[in-house]
């Protein structure tokens, strides 16, 4: 009460109580004694807070939320009344019920914060149990479970699900924030099936024991495969054919062949047989030359570009290799499972 003596003006106490009540969020309490204690605390009637809170705590079926508020009011009130032992005792009970609850260091007085820290140092609890939402390929990563011990102790972590085997992990004497990992494998080293699981952390130091649990959901889904490539991802194919300029080669060839045959016919015919026949060679020669002429007028056939053909062949081989790699990778992916972790609202401690 030293600070009240020093700062005794009532406006200060009223402000403190207002701040504390705001920090507690004490609205809509169901239990009448807890509500009465709250009203007395807000009215700075500290002597009335204690019996009301005690009456509430004596009720065996008092809801945990009310019990937490009652212990907190007791702790604050004993702190204000300078009853340090009782304040620490109330805070210890509060910490067992809600180890993650902390007085707002900005809104409550340093004295109360100090008493709370003193109580925290006297008990063994697991605080700040956190499992982050995450998605990863099963077997490639482990699920981190973060927590902190209020004071040094050993921890055993168990993971259990409905009808599923538990996996046990443990760590020696630790202090402060710690991370334990679970690889989502069961005792047969198989990925656990989808479902709701629970991490149970058992802390122990000497005779002090504390256990808390945190639930989360494991969901499975197939890993996305890589699509098959229909074209090279980095390079485009080149045209394998090119359109040559029009030329008169067909006419030239037809004329050459016709001249050869006609010349041979004229030169080698047997003159003793009289006037030689001309109609056959004439008709066919005409057809051959006309064919060559027409083919010369026609747009030439595209011709292959050897360099481009070779380049495209190399691209096709590279594409086939890429697709083979992708197929092998997809084969692996089809055997994999994408695991999603979704933490559920926290469970209690004991």
């Amino acid at each position, binding site marked *: 009460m030293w600070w009240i003596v020093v700062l005794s003006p009532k406006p200060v106490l009223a402000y403190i109580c207002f701040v504390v009540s705001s920090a507690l969020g004490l609205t809509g309490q169901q239990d009448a004694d807890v509500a009465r204690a709250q009203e007395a605390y807000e009215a700075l009637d500290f002597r009335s807070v204690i019996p009301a809170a005690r009456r509430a705590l004596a009720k065996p079926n008092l809801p945990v939320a009310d019990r937490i508020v009652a212990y907190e009011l007791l702790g604050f009130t004993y702190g204000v009344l300078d009853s340090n032992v009782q304040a620490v005792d109330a805070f210890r009970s509060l910490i067992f019920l809600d180890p993650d609850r902390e007085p707002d260091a900005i809104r409550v007085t340093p004295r109360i914060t100090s008493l709370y820290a003193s109580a925290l140092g006297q008990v063994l609890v697991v605080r700040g149990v956190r499992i982050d939402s995450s998605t990863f390929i099963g077997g490639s990563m482990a699920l981190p479970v973060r927590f902190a011990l209020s004071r040094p102790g050993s921890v055993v972590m168990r993971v259990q699900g409905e009808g599923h085997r538990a996996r046990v992990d443990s760590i020696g004497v630790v202090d402060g924030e710690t991370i334990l990992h679970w690889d989502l494998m069961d005792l047969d080293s198989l990925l656990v099936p989808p479902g709701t699981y629970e991490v149970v952390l058992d802390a122990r130091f000497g005779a002090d024991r504390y256990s808390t649990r945190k639930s989360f959901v494991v969901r499975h889904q197939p890993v996305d495969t890589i699509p098959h490539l229909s074209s090279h991802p980095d390079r485009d194919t080149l045209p394998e054919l090119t359109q040559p300029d029009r030329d008169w080669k067909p006419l030239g060839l037809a004329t050459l*062949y016709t001249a050869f*045959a006609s010349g041979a016919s004229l030169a*080698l015919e047997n003159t003793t*047989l009289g006037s030689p026949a001309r109609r056959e*060679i004439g008709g066919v020669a005409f057809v051959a030359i006309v064919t060559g002429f027409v*083919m010369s007028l*026609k747009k030439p056939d595209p011709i292959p570009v050897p360099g481009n053909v070779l380049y495209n062949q190399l691209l096709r081989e590279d594409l086939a290799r890429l697709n083979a790699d992708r197929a092998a990778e997809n084969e692996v992916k089809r055997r994999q499972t994408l695991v999603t972790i979704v933490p559920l609202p926290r469970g209690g401690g004991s």
Partner: protein
Amino acid sequence: MKCGAFPVLGVGLLSVTSVEAQTVRFRADAIAVTYQEISGTRDAVGAGGGGGIELRFGKFQIDARAHSVMIDPDSTGLATYDLAQIDVRGAYRLTEFLSLEVGGGRRYVSPEFAAQGVGYTRVGVYSENALNRLASVWVRGAFLPSPRFSGGGDAELAFEFALGAGIGTANGRFRFHAEYEFQRIDRRANDIGVPIQQSLSRAGIAIGF
């Protein structure tokens, strides 16, 4: 040999299509012939029809043809007669444009002795050049060693050559062609020259598979 023999030949040739061929082509031709024998006074012209089959596989080519024409002699007092001819050629492509060709043939005359029946073998070359994917021209020339005649005798010189042009679809399914064949055989009988010369043109269509 009567014309009725050609269907038999065709059936026989069709059975060859079981050979592992890259191209099988059947052809039907219209034929025009100028046939000269002995002297200039015995010129004869005729027309008829024919057909054949052509197989191409790898570097090999086999060509079998037959035709029959009715000859109408210019000379007075000579009756018309039938002239039928069978030719078989086998070629092996030595280069892109040149093939070695061997084969044989026989010409039948009906009625017998209206003209000389001839049997011959041939050794020569064949050159085909594609003008583009649709058309090609070709020439062939062959020496005919030791031809045989129905009337006896021999030949000091016998050869033939040909010119052809064809145009068709790019896939080779249909093809029109025109071809000229010249054959000269300097026959001698009893040390008397009785030469034979034939100019033949054919035009037709071929269907390929």
